[in-house]
C-alpha cells in the first residue's frame, strides 16, 4: 500500500485503537478481582492503571499478557480476538516487577531469548541485540550475568528484553517498584524517552501516583476491580468524579454540606464546618431527592492569611495546628474554629525569609469560587 504522506499516516495511526477490552471480568473462587472492565488503549500511548493493592490492576495486566484467562468478556489486540490465546503466541511482551531476568544467561542471551523463539537468523539476532543494548546504554555489559548488575541496570536490560521483539503492546508491571526514590525519578523519564523513541504502545500498572502522572498520557483509577475514572493526569487531579478518586490522588480537603441556593450560573453550599457559605461560580447538576453534596478543594488552591477576608463567603477562621516544612512548600494544618476539623493548606516558599504564620496563630483559610470541585458522592 502506498503511503500518501508520512505525517498523515502517523496522525491516522495515533488515534487508532490498539487494544479493546470489552466487559472483562475475572473471578477467583468467589471474589471478583476484575469486575466488568471496558477500556480502549490507543496506538502509541502510555497508559497507566493506578490503584491500591487488591484493586485488580495486576490481574487486568496479567489477562493482557495471557497469564490469566478472563471469566467473561473479550480482549482485542489490533482487531484480533486474543482472549484465549496463550501467552507465548501473543505479540505482547511484559517487563516484570522483579525484572525476571534469566539468571543463568548473560545479558546478551537474555535479550536474544525472545528472538530465538521466532527462529530469527543468527546475524540478525546479533545485530538486534546490539541495537537494543545501545538503546538502553548497556552495551558494555553484554557478557555480564544479571546478578552482576545494579538495580537500575537490571531494569534497563529487562526493558531491552521486552522491547527486542518489537511487540505491538508493552506491559510494565510496577516498573520502578524495586528502585530507590532518586533512581526512580531518573528512570521514569528515561523509560518514557526510550518508549517514545521506539514508538511503543504501553500499559503500565502502578500504585505510585507520581509515577503514573510522570509517565502516562492517560490513566485509569481502579478500585475493587472496577475502573472508577479514566482521563489524563490533569483531568483526574483537577476534576475527580468521586470522593474516592479525589482522596486517592494527592491530598484534598473534603467538606460535606447541602445546597441552599441553586441557580443556573452559581450555587451556594452551607457546610457545618465553615464560618461562611461556599459560593461556587458555576451551575451543578443536582439530584432532586437529596440536597447533600461534597465540596472538595486541593490544599494548594487555598489561601492562608492572617487578616480577615473582606468578602462574605468562601473563607473560614481557624488556628494553626501543625506545620510541615518541606523545603519547596510548607503544609499548614489549620484547625477550624467551628467544628475543629483539620484543613490542609500549601504555602509555596518563594522567599527565603518571610513572616509565615506559626503554631497557634489565628489564621483565615480562603479560596476563590472556581477553586474546588462539587461531588455528588
Amino acid at each position, binding site marked *: 500500500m502506498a503511503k500518501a504522506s508520512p505525517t498523515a499516516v502517523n496522525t491516522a495511526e495515533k488515534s487508532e485503537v490498539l487494544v479493546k477490552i470489552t466487559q472483562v471480568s475475572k473471578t477467583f473462587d468467589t471474589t471478583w478481582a476484575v469486575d466488568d472492565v471496558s477500556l480502549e488503549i490507543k496506538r502509541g500511548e502510555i497508559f497507566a492503571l493506578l490503584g491500591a493493592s487488591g484493586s485488580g490492576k495486576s490481574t487486568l495486566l496479567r489477562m493482557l*499478557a*495471557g*497469564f490469566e484467562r478472563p471469566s467473561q468478556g473479550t480482549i482485542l489486540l489490533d482487531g484480533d480476538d486474543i482472549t484465549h490465546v*496463550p*501467552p*507465548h*503466541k501473543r505479540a*505482547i*511482551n*511484559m517487563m*516484570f*516487577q*522483579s525484572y*525476571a*531476568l*534469566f*539468571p*543463568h544467561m548473560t545479558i546478551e542471551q537474555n535479550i536474544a*531469548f*525472545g528472538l530465538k*523463539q*521466532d527462529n530469527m537468523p543468527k546475524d540478525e539476532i546479533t545485530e538486534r541485540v546490539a541495537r537494543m543494548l545501545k538503546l538502553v546504554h548497556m552495551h*558494555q*555489559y*553484554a*557478557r*555480564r*550475568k544479571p546478578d*552482576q548488575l545494579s538495580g537500575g541496570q537490571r531494569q534497563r536490560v529487562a526493558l531491552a*528484553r*521486552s522491547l527486542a*521483539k518489537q511487540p505491538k503492546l508493552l506491559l510494565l508491571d510496577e516498573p520502578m517498584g524495586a528502585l530507590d526514590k532518586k533512581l526512580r525519578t531518573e528512570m521514569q523519564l528515561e523509560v518514557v524517552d526510550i518508549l517514545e523513541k521506539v514508538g511503543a504502545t504501553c500499559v503500565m500498572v502502578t500504585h505510585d501516583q507520581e509515577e503514573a502522572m510522570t509517565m502516562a498520557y492517560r490513566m485509569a483509577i481502579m478500585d475493587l476491580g472496577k475502573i472508577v475514572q479514566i482521563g489524563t493526569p490533569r483531568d483526574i487531579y483537577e476534576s475527580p468524579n468521586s470522593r474516592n478518586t479525589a482522596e486517592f490522588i494527592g491530598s484534598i480537603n473534603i467538606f460535606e454540606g447541602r445546597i441552599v441556593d441553586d441557580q443556573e450560573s452559581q450555587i451556594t453550599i452551607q457546610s457545618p464546618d465553615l464560618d461562611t457559605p461556599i459560593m461556587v461560580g458555576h451551575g451543578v447538576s443536582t439530584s432532586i431527592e437529596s440536597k447533600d453534596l461534597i465540596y472538595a478543594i486541593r490544599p494548594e488552591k487555598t489561601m492562608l492569611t492572617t487578616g480577615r477576608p473582606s468578602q462574605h463567603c468562601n473563607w473560614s477562621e481557624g488556628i494553626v495546628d501543625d506545620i510541615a516544612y518541606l523545603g519547596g512548600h510548607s503544609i499548614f494544618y489549620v484547625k477550624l474554629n467551628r467544628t475543629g476539623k483539620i484543613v490542609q493548606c500549601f504555602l509555596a516558599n518563594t522567599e527565603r525569609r518571610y513572616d509565615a504564620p506559626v503554631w497557634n496563630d489565628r489564621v483565615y483559610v480562603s479560596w476563590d469560587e472556581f477553586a474546588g470541585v462539587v461531588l455528588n458522592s
Partner: protein
Amino acid sequence: MRNFSFSRFMFWAGLTFLYLPMFILVIYSFNESRLVTVWAGWSTKWYGELFQDTQIMGAVKRSLEVAFLSATSAVFFGMLSSWAMVRIAKFRGKTLFGGMITAPLVMPDVIIGLSLLLLFVAFTQLTGWPRERGMLTIWIAHTTFGMAYATVVISSRLREMDASIEEAAMDLGAPPLKVFFAITLPLIAPAVASAWLLAFTLSLDDVVIASFVTGPGATTLPIEVLSSVRRGVSPKINVLASLIIFAVSMVTFTVWYVSRRLEKNRQKAMADDFLIE
C-alpha cells in the same frame, strides 16, 4: 598454629573427628597383615586381591547399576511430583498427596522393605509379574524412597525460584516444554544434581530394604559386605572403602575445578569488554 583460639581449636577438632577414621581406614588398606586390626608393614597386595574377588566385584557392579538406575528414575519422578506440588496452585487432594509423597522419609526401612516384599509377592501371585525378586525389584524399591528425598530437595528449590522467570520466558514466545528445558531445568539443575547424588548414595548405602526385596543372584554391595564381615573382617573391605573415598573425592574435585575454570573465563571475557570500549 600461630595464635591459639577456641574457635580455631574447635575447627581442627571437628575436622579430626570427621576425617581421622577415614584416614586410618585408608592407611590400614595398605596393611600387610590379614588381620584388620594388626599392623604388619606396608603392602598393596590387598588391592590386587580385591580385584580378583569376583564376588565382591560383582556386587560392586550390581550396586552401582542399581544406584544409577534408581537415582535416575527417582529424580525423574521427583521432578514431576515437585512440579505438581509447587507450580499447580490447587488440585483435589493436594495436601494428601504432599503428605504421602514424603512419607517414606519418616517411615522405618523395615516397614518399607516388608511392605514392598508383600506387594511384590502379591503381584506375582496375581499377575505372574515380577517372576522372581532381584535387580528389578530392588530398583523399584529404591526408586520409591529415593523419589521422596528427590521431591523434598527439588521442590524446595523450585519453590525458591521466582515463578515470573518462567512466565517471562513464556511471554517471550517459548512454549511450555521449551520453558521447562531452557529455563526451569537449568535453574533447578543444582538441586536435581544433589537429589540425584542423594538418591544414588542412599541406594548404594541401603541394606535393610534391599535385603527384603532381593532375590537369588542379586546381592548388592552392602549386603555382600555385611555378610562377609560376619565371616570376619577382611582387609579387602578396607581397600574397597578407600577406593570409594578416592572416587568420591575425585568427583568433587573435578566439579569444583571445572566450575572455577568456567567462571574465570567469563570474568576475563567481561574484563575484555571494557578494554575494547
